[in-house]
């Protein structure tokens, strides 16, 4: 059964509200940070690797592609 008569009583927590809510808020922030850091780190690595590979493909393309094809879109003066 819900222990509080009203929403304001729930927030006040019999005078202990600030301590309780601050504890839960701080914990939530730390837990979110723990999940976010490895995900962001992995994303950063994967997009860097992808960029690097695209560059490499383009580089090798320059030397292999000797036919006068439509490869002039790269840079406009």
């Amino acid at each position, binding site marked *: *059964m*819900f*222990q*509080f008569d009203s929403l304001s009583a*729930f927030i006040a*927590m*019999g*005078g*202990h*509200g600030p*301590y*309780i809510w*601050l*504890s*839960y808020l*701080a*914990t939530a922030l*730390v*837990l979110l*940070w*723990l*999940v976010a*850091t*490895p*995900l962001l*780190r*992995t994303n950063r*690595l*994967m*997009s860097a*690797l*992808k960029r690097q*590979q695209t560059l490499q493909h383009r580089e090798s393309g320059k030397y292999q592609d000797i036919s006068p094809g439509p490869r002039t879109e790269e840079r406009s003066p």
Partner: protein
Amino acid sequence: MARTRPLLPEWFHRLGSPKGFYQMTSSWMPWLAVTAAVLLLVGTVWGLGFAPQDAKQGNSFRIIYIHVPAAFLALAGYYVMAAAGAIGLVWKMKLAHMVMKAAAPLGAALTLISLVTGSLWGKPTWGTYWVWDARITSMLVLFFLYLGVIALHYAYTNGEAASKASAVLALVGTANIPIIYKSVDWWYTLHQPATIKLTQAPSMHPDMFYPLLVMIAGFYCFYALVLLLNTRSEILHRERRTRWVLDMAEGGRS
């Protein structure tokens, strides 16, 4: 002649290789994430709104639902880190070093949570945010041990030397763990004795105890989730020049 059977099952060898470990754990991640989220959510709502208030402490005791699970996992996580360090030292297993590195920031964060929530609980209950008593001081030492392991990883440019040094520090620091457990029995302290003991019935009313169990289970799942996330990220970083990682980067996320 009898056919020779492999000494260890195939999945064990897959676990030992970073690539095998990465691929094997991929399918676990969504399950762990959902289980952890549901348990933590249910436990929080139950503990904050539906558990009866404590006769002596009033509502401030509701902090127990994060304080105790966080402290629990901060200690259990130290064993994980030290055991991974020992395995890495003895068998030169790369994956074990990665697990050890993954466990350090996670353990530090959980120790910090238990210190901060303990302090916020102490103010309305003991009248002070901080006392230099045995339990709290030994938890602070645990926090610095975790920070030390993290710092050693940054102190060396050579990855192998870093792993060795932090594994040794982690193993030496294990001496602190029984001190933390026993501190409430050995010394006079403000901190209350353990709520849950394996050998006895809990000293809590079931209405208060069940949400605590849910939260502990939730923190366990969360711990496993983040340990895997960190380890998998570390695997990709260390193997970033190998074909399988490059293929994965090109093929999109996985």
